[in-house]
């Protein structure tokens, strides 16, 4: 039974409705739904691991007229990341939002966001992807503006307008695809796609729309204010998950759906923008005065690394080397998801305890909040790419692919970006370990510190030591998918 595919979408969706009806029980509903959808995702993952990609024609309508859902190794691994991060951030949010009103506003939107993310990752239909992109954009904007502070609303509004422009460009590409090929089903399209003007223009329109949404330099301008002004759990989801969904589509299109259409030069252009993002984002993170702004600029940089993989993957002939590099790309994306959410949640702890997130005034944090400082350091390890984090292995693989291809520019960018990441991480830790009374109360251990610690440990230890499983799971099936 492939009906398993609907549960990661339906459970959060139904829970969102329940959370609207029963505002007094929202915390319980949210956590229960998070756990239940995690169970569904794990079951789905084990099915995909044993049986390969799964396909479900919704309502029994065959694709073409109906809409298909599809789960393969790539989408299922990202869904597992989404579920885990969303659950941890949700648990953190139960303590973060002290007022009942705030909780009642937060949970329905949060559950809709998770549902939209799962639906996007499972969609096998271009128009359905457009709808899920819009659902994701609208819930993300509403969550970013949830505190109704002037700066947050202003940033959210810009986020919305920019996101809408991105979605419309995507939709224009979808219209062109339908005009030329007469179908929006991605599996049927994969077979009929030809390198011709219609496909090029459609890919250009859709990619531009998606690049706005994943904030690739120089289209990143909306991200830092939107991510830095949102409440901590929301920032974690925006930075770790929402931009990743747009990147997933870019990777899916460039490496799978349009693989006969893309050219190495076009992919190299994306790689160059990624390189600029790595350098500019890291530099801005180093100069940031506030922790949340640092984390947001670090997201700009980390997304840049993902784009460095594209020219290499497009250049490589199909085979083990390409599969390995693709596994590294997925590992990097997932590790960043866990590390960045851990970073934003621990910044949230500091911000609530200290009343601010100014980096220069963090003195004494290490003494008062040892666990959170440890989490910050672990997240930093994963962002820099030190062993044993998953990032280390992924960057290693990126470097060796770049060496093998003789693409020296990427090697220099990765090296410089890592040095800058180390600089901004140690700048924060330097202040945190310094003398001062930044945080008012001496605290031995707080429940709210746990979710971020778990996320940071997954990024540094679990994904580092268990990286072989990610590779085994993702790599071999990655490009055999079209056979289906």
């Amino acid at each position: 039974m492939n009906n398993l595919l609907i549960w990661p979408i339906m459970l959060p969706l139904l829970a969102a409705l329940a959370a609207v009806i029963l505002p007094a029980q929202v915390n319980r509903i949210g956590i229960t739904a998070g756990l239940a959808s995690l169970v569904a995702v794990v079951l789905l993952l084990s099915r995909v691991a044993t049986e390969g990609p799964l396909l479900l024609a919704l309502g029994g309508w065959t694709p073409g007229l109906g809409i298909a859902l599809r789960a393969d190794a790539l989408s299922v691994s990202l869904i597992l990341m989404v579920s885990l991060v969303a659950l941890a951030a949700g648990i953190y949010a139960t303590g973060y939002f002290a007022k009942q009103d705030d909780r009642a506003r937060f949970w329905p939107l949060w559950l809709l966001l998770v549902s939209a993310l799962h639906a996007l990752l499972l969609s096998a239909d271009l128009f359905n992807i457009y709808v899920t992109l819009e659902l994701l954009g609208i819930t993300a904007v509403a969550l970013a503006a949830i505190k109704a502070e002037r700066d947050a609303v202003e940033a959210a509004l810009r986020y919305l307008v920019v996101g809408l422009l991105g979605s419309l460009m995507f939709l224009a590409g979808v219209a062109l695809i339908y005009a030329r090929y007469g179908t929006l089903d991605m599996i049927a399209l994969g077979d009929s796609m030809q390198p011709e003007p219609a496909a090029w223009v459609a890919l250009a329109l859709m990619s531009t729309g998606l690049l706005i949404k994943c904030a690739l330099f120089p289209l990143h301008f909306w991200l830092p204010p939107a991510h830095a002004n949102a409440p901590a759990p929301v920032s974690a989801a925006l930075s770790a998950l929402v931009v990743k969904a747009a990147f997933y589509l870019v990777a899916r299109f460039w490496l799978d759906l349009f693989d006969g259409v893309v050219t190495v030069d076009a992919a190299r252009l994306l790689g160059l923008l990624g390189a600029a993002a790595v350098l500019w984002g890291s530099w801005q993170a180093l100069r940031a005065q506030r922790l949340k702004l640092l984390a947001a600029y670090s997201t700009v940089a980390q997304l840049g690394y993902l784009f460095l993989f594209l020219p290499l993957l497009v250049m490589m002939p199909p085979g083990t080397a390409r599969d390995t590099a693709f596994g590294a790309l997925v590992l990097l994306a997932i590790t960043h998801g866990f590390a960045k959410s851990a970073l934003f949640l621990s910044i949230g702890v500091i911000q609530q305890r200290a009343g601010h997130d100014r980096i220069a005034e963090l003195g004494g944090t290490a003494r008062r909040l040892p666990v959170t400082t440890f989490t910050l350091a672990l997240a930093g390890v994963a962002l820099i790419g030190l062993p044993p984090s998953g990032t280390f292995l992924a960057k290693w693989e990126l470097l060796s692919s770049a060496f093998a291809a003789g693409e020296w520019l990427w090697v220099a960018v990765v090296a410089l970006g890592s040095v800058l990441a180390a600089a901004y991480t140690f700048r924060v830790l330097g202040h945190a370990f310094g003398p001062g009374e930044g945080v008012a109360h001496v605290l031995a251990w707080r429940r709210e510190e746990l979710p971020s610690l778990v996320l940071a440990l997954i990024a540094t230890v679990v994904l580092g030591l268990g990286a072989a499983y990610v590779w085994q799971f993702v790599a071999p099936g990655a490009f055999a998918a079209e056979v289906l």
Partner: protein
Amino acid sequence: MLATDLIYSFAGVALFALGLRAALLHRTLLGRVLSINICGAGIFLVFVALAYRGHDLAPDAVPHALVLTGIVVAVSATALALALGRRLHEAGDE
């Protein structure tokens, strides 16, 4: 003489381009929201034109369904933008 569906398609593309240009150039929120809606209407017009299969055949139902869904999405997004704009306006008055 252009075929009817091509006239509609070109009009749609022109609307899309005009809306996109205006959305990028306008500074005010209302101007931007209206431009985005015009931009979207252009794409919907293209979809509607795509459904045309000649005078004797029934139009293709799929693009029509897509346009209906698209309109729902566009209205929701517009509502959210206006609600946020109003909240910003109220916050500015304090």
